[in-house]
């Protein structure tokens, strides 16, 4: 995938050599190389992507075999992906790459990051470099998040 931001040790990097190919619809002929496949079509050695309707709990037994999970935002206004990401990180213990795909835009990146995403496939018609500016967000988080489990009242 192109137009990608990835957090490595907390540092954001723009990636132009990402090896993964996103497969939205299964065709007869699959591309070569590592693929990000729909949940129903996952096969070993590949990554998986979840639609907002998919239950993250269904991945529980498979997590050890996965090398990448992507979560799709069909519209940036559909907020289910935030809960999916949060649960994957905090409840299911997913430690591997968690990638936001679909309608991924600068002004939501910081929320995605706080819910546990560590890579962001910025929508193709937008500049990933520009989107980087949205990654930091606010310095204050009252509640808690996947990356800061303690609410502010325990840090204040």
């Amino acid at each position, binding site marked *: 995938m192109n137009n990608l931001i990835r957090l490595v040790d907390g540092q954001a990097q723009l990636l132009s050599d990402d090896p993964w190919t996103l497969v939205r619809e299964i065709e007869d002929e699959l591309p070569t190389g590592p693929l990000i496949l729909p949940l129903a079509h996952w096969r070993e050695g590949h990554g998986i992507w979840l639609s907002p309707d998919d239950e993250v709990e269904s991945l529980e037994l498979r997590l050890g075999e996965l090398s990448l999970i992507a979560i799709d935002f069909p519209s940036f206004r559909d907020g289910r992906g935030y809960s999916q990401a949060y649960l994957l990180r905090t409840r299911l213990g997913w430690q591997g790459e968690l990638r936001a795909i679909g309608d991924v835009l600068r002004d939501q990146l*910081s929320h995605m990051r*706080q819910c546990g995403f560590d890579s962001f496939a910025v929508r193709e018609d937008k500049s990933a470099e520009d989107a980087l500016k949205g990654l930091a967000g*606010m*310095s204050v988080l009252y509640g808690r998040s996947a990356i800061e489990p303690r609410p502010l*009242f325990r840090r204040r």
Partner: protein
Amino acid sequence: MYHYDEYDRALVFERVAQFRDQVQRFMGGELSEEEFLPLRLQNGLYLQKHAYMLRVAIPYGTLGANQLRTLARIAREFDRGYGHFTTRQNIQFNWIELAQVPDILAILAEVEMHAIQTSGNCVRNITTEAFAGVAADELMDPRPLAEILRQWSTINPEFLYLPRKFKIAICSAEQDRAAIMMHDIGLYLYRDPNGEMLLRVMVGGGLGRTPILGLQIREGLPWQHLLSYVEAILRVYNRHGRRDNKYKARIKILVKALGIDAFAHEVEQEWQHIKDGPAQLTDAEYQRVANAFVPPSYQTLSDTDLDFGTRLVMDAAFARWVARNVQPHKVPGYASVVLSTKPGPAAPPGDLTDIQMDAVADWAEIFGFGEIRIAHEQNLILPDVRKRDLYALWARACEQGLGTANIGLLTDIIACPGGDFCALANAKSIPIAQAIQQRFDDLDYLHDIGDVSLNISGCMNACGHHHIGNIGILGVDKNGSEWYQVTLGGAQGKDSALGKVIGPSFSAAQIPDVIEQIVATFTDYRESDELFVDTVQRIGLEPFKERVYAKAEGEAA
């Protein structure tokens, strides 16, 4: 009052800078209308019929005098000299220039105010009742938990793109003055016999097209679990609430579809995972916030004041105002005063000019401890007035058009902005309110009628709460012209009820007559001092229908 510390301050200022950048990018064409929409909504900015409208939060309805002066300044410098107080303890400015919004928000941030999440599909302003901290029937002050919830729900990253808006209210008094049952989550705070603070949690209330009263999902929730329990509800809703149809997207529809038991089960399962985690509230945090709401230093006064007593006897108009607009206070010698924003046709319900706002801010300092409250009935409250000062305050309030003695009476109308401002309206609300107020301009008669709530909404979104008015008026569209449907028997509070439609709708011109017939029916059937709503309960809709429609037919013939 709660005052910002460095975290709270940093957050609002960073938010202003962030939104300034977003406005610039929108105006420069970098952000599309669609991309900008939720960003501006989450900063309180609507596009109305004629201009942008900015909705500023007044968390749990509490304002300091300097904050009210700042609102006056915004009305004066950035709007047309007035603001509109809403039924959800916010203020709206109707004539705002987009390019100036970041500056307005910066001015607000200076006085610890903001417009964050006053709109959009996120957790909205947390509301409580206007007499929190002072009401004589209060069990405990709900504001510390309201503030804790406000903070926790502000820019909570997981819950900013919910299926639909989400409203939370909390109250802790014998009477429910916060419309708890009409909220997505409603919280009743009380103590058990051992003095432990507990919460009764209601879920799935809401008005709009499908008015539903909240159902109890949990009794006896220890307060330490407030945040985790609300989080569990929000997570279940965020994951499973409908997103295919915005009229079916509120949590009430999910609760109804699953049934309260199945919904409660989902929430309980989710909650088991998080209940004893770091979201559990600590005594230290409660105390930190509660310290901001310690009662002011009241004087030790006798509960009876000679001068006040004399004035009551001498001045009937004053006595009438005291009877309607003055509320008992828990501290002897003090009272809470409601300033009516409903003088009649002179001004739309809920509107205050910059001059009036400045005056109220002055009175709050002269006659109180510098604090003002906003009631969800769209009136303003001075919570701590010495009884001996009531007469002086009344005189000033009358000079400013804020002394109408009509709290709880028929002319204390709750109305949404309606067709004069709102792009979604079927019909106008304000002229209807004014026509009714004009018809019932005899205060003696109004006082005889007694308590009646009358609510007007310009469309089924129900911003004027028409479903829970004893008399409800709803603007409907019939072939492009404006008509009004009337309901009777709605009520708020612990005995909340939704009103029932009395029959076919009326034209604007008919409405004052219709209300007059309804009131006349009531006075005919009333037994001794019975309240309007109780008479409706007792005799049902028939007698009202008969009279109203007989009259209307007579005219048509």
